[in-house]
């Protein structure tokens, strides 16, 4: 075991950790918003929106994230330069980066899984509570914001914690599209110093610590709103 490289590579590791956390926060944040829309479409949408949302979730849960990522990065990425004017627009520096495609595909993928979790949770909210809200004259929007969604999120919280950890464990895939995340740094250290296990070990430790932090944070949130049945 040789850890001398740490003194030279720690700034890179820190950058990598930042990239990993950024990917996680972006994909979970935007993915969750998308998932709320999808879950409501599945639970209370018309036949068309319902089957669209179902189809979305089937396709994204039925194909590997790696393929989705590569389809976006190599596939859509190779089509983008054909769009006239895009190359010179202000968007190009963002669209050129692997990070953008990684964040986008992780978001879309996370939304598909989270939508299924929320769908179940929305269905588990007692009908009487929704009826009570309606009887008080709440508009549909108020009902969703004040009762339906908060209740569902509280029920789903333990599952959501699990999903976030799973999402963290999916982020190393970003390294295949040139994102310098934590795992990519371990890979670079291996190339530079020919050490295989030490960098993997250090990076793994980072992931485990992040997992513990996420679980703790969710445990804290859960403790704020004890569930009563």
């Amino acid at each position, binding site marked *: 075991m040789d850890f001398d490289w740490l003194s030279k590579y720690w700034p890179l590791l820190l950058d990598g950790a930042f990239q990993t956390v950024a990917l996680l926060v972006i994909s979970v944040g935007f993915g969750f918003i998308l998932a709320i829309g999808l879950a409501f479409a599945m639970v209370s949408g018309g036949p068309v929106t319902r089957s669209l949302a179902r189809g979305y979730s*089937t*396709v994204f*849960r*039925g*194909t*590997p*994230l*790696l*393929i*989705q990522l*590569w*389809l976006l990065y*190599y*596939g*859509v*990425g*190779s*089509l983008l330069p054909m769009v006239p004017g895009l190359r010179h627009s202000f968007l190009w520096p963002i669209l050129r980066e692997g990070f953008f495609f990684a964040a986008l595909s992780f978001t879309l993928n996370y939304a598909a899984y989270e939508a299924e979790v929320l769908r179940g949770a929305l269905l588990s909210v007692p009908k009487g509570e929704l009826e009570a809200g309606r009887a008080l004259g709440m508009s549909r929007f108020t009902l969703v914001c004040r009762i339906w969604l908060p209740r569902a999120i509280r029920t789903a919280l333990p599952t959501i914690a699990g999903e976030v950890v799973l999402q*963290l*464990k*999916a*982020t*190393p*895939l970003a*390294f*295949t599209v040139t994102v310098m995340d934590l*795992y990519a740094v*371990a890979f670079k250290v291996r190339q530079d110093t020919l050490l*295989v*296990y030490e960098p*993997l070990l250090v*990076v*793994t430790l980072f*992931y*485990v610590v992040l*997992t513990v932090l996420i679980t703790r944070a969710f445990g804290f949130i859960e403790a704020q709103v004890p569930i009563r049945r």
Partner: protein
Amino acid sequence: MATTPMTAWQLLALEPPGWGGALLTGAVTTVAISATAFAIGLVFGLFGAMGKLSGNRPVGLLLKLYTGTIRAVPELILIVGLYYAGTDGLNRLLQSFGMPPVEVNGFVAAVAVLGFVQGAYMTEVLRGAILAIPAGQIEAARAFGMSPFLRFRRVTLPALLPNALPGMANLWMSVTKDSALVAVVGYQELALTTRLAGANTKQYFLFFLAAAILYLAITLLSNLVFHWLERRVRRGQRLTA
């Protein structure tokens, strides 16, 4: 590169200038890797679950370490790490016995690594399923004087299957998708074949779309099989609460 561009159908043709045949071979490899890894995972899981339930403390601690680490570490790291550690360790072992090092077959390495990872998840699924069997059923089998093996075959196994099947279906889905990760260590299954096809023809979008459809077909087909299996193992049970 002055040749006339090929149409999508020509690119996906089964015969060599087209890549359809290679993609299908890749898909078959993916299913083969997944199925073998799943089977290995099942064996690991069965022993893991029995070990955890046996109440033996050192065994329990060891298994806790196994399931705990596997489930906490990102799949890609596990696969890359175990891939190198596994082949490296095997060669060192061989060398210490004075034997020449071997080139580990990519299929074997991929399957071993994925199976080892699956085993950790399978342990938990099977442990839960065994715990959910009403204790009376097993006591009754014991009271009838069944040997442990007969008891397992006639009572525990049929009783745990309905409980375990949904979890096992999820694990199957995740192993078919995790198998795409062995592309990263360079074993040619569907994901890597697709990337090669894309790199050769520059038609990335077409090929990745085709691969996504193939994976989806695998998933949907497996869904049907698991639905059928679950109906079968739940014969005589109520299907709704």
